[in-house]
């Protein structure tokens, strides 16, 4: 029930990404979902376990994975990502309900480390002919290197839309992007991360129907805002303004749909706030001080890694400990 609603909430984002990037984004979504579902099916069969494909969780993993990849990402690499996401990120731990990390992000982290060039090859949004032709890299043969897109981008781009993402431009060239286009989402970037507005709306749907813990995105976003505001106030010339930080890159998508993975996040109320705050902090630190323009993926994976520990530390005291405290008082 929850799973199916998450899929519903993701569909508008998928549709927007297809509108923005064309059939390549559609193919990428299809490849990721197919790969995830197939992997889960095969592992269940080989391991002699009851089939769990029907629970829609593999579909969600596939959709999320595709939404975090560049629109022209080679389909064979997308399929590898799906395999790793479900195989390593989920089934290894015993399937749904036991995953330690968000499976889609495990897949994406693998792809980021394995193919660092392909995964940073972004293409402009609203390219001409995007519904008629594939981005050339999409159809790269398995195990082959994708083409370099510089010339193709020159040919297809519509006025201001360049291939570089707002984050890359900010990080390496100190070129700021206005907040409004970021909010609406007509920028280059990963397929599903561009429109902050749409992601907020879809997340709000899940929150309103109580399928999602609102405190996690709230904590993560506000912590990212506060931390980046501190950097910005200290050195406005060097760091982007906090609104840019909120609406650019995968922060919104990550905070709404990936950090909120119920199994991989803490359960105690205080723990949830700590978890969200920590992820917002790491995101900003990696973006501002690290080598990469984007840090949301790593922040969430690290958050997942320490979430059992946060749970341990924030759990209501067990009997013995409480007695000690009482004695002290």
């Amino acid at each position, binding site marked *: 029930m929850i799973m199916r609603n998450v899929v519903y909430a993701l569909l508008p984002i998928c549709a927007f990404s297809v509108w923005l990037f064309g059939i390549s984004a559609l193919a990428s979504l299809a490849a990721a979902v197919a790969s995830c579902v197939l992997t889960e099916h095969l592992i269940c069969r080989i391991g002699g376990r009851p089939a769990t494909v029907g629970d829609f969780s593999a579909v969600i993993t596939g959709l999320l994975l595709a939404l975090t990849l560049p629109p022209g990402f080679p389909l064979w690499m997308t399929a590898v990502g799906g395999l790793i996401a479900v195989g390593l990120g989920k089934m290894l731990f015993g399937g749904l309900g036991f995953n330690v990390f968000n499976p889609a992000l495990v897949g994406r982290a693998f792809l980021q480390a394995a193919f*660092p060039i392909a995964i940073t090859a972004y293409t402009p949004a609203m390219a001409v002919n995007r519904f008629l032709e594939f981005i050339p890299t999409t159809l790269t043969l398995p195990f082959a290197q994708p083409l370099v897109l510089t010339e193709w981008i020159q040919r297809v781009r519509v006025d201001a839309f360049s291939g570089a993402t707002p984050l890359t431009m900010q990080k*390496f060239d100190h070129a700021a992007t206005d907040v409004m286009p970021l909010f609406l989402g007509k920028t280059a970037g990963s397929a599903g991360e561009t429109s902050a507005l749409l992601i907020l709306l879809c997340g709000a749907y899940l929150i309103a129907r109580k399928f999602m813990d609102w405190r996690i995105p709230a904590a993560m976003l506000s912590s990212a805002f506060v931390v980046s505001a501190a950097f910005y106030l200290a050195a406005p010339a060097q760091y982007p303004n906090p609104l840019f930080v909120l609406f650019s890159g995968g922060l919104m998508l990550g905070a709404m749909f990936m950090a909120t993975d119920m199994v991989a996040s803490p359960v105690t109320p205080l723990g949830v706030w700590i978890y969200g705050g920590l992820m917002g902090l790491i995101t900003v630190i990696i973006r501002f001080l690290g*080598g990469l323009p984007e840090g949301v993926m790593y922040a969430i994976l690290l958050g997942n890694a320490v979430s059992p520990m946060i749970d341990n530390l924030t759990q209501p005291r067990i009997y013995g400990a409480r007695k000690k405290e009482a004695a002290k008082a």
Partner: protein
Amino acid sequence: MSATTQSPQARTPKPPAAEAASSVKMIRLMGSVSLICGLLIVTTYRSTLVPIQRNQEIIMKETVAELLPGVEKQVIYGVQPSGEISVLKSLDYTGPRLFAGYNGSGALLGVVLEASDRGYADVIRTMYAYSPAKQAITGFKVVELKETPGLGDKITSDPTFLANFQNLDVRLNADKTSTAHPVTTVKHGTKKNPWEVDAISGATISSRAVGRALDKSTRDLLPIVNRNLSRIEKGE
């Protein structure tokens, strides 16, 4: 690993006589084992000393020859903290080193220097050839790096990036205390001045580390090279 320290429960039953053996015997044993070990180590150390130094010299000579084509003779100088230079007999020197290269007729071709800075993963060590006549860097080589394969390690192979160092302007300022223009790394495709380094797109951090390394090294060492140029030219 736990077992190595926990398993010593004596499985070899010792006769009671051995148990009673005095610590003299123990010390004698440890002493003789140490003696054997010491002998072995010292022998190896002595016998490998020459081949190791030779290996290091060969590698260094090859690098210098690569950076200064046509080099026939090499002299190594060590830079002392005071800024004085002196000819070194071996590579063992902790301060900055200058590798001067000469052609067959003894004319100075250029000086090879070392530069390093922190890159993406770890310190990047490079060597570059400086031509006092052209007041420019004329050659460049990365000698040690741990950057991401396929990304940061492009600084060793990318032809456009390496083309930066065929003639990079590092002329000195008017009072010869530093370089006139700092070596700066600029975004790929925006190089305008001869002292700028055109970065590799997608490997910006490694490219910038190279620029910073060269900048620091040229600032510190080129004034020293130029001050002692007459000595270096004679090779003394």
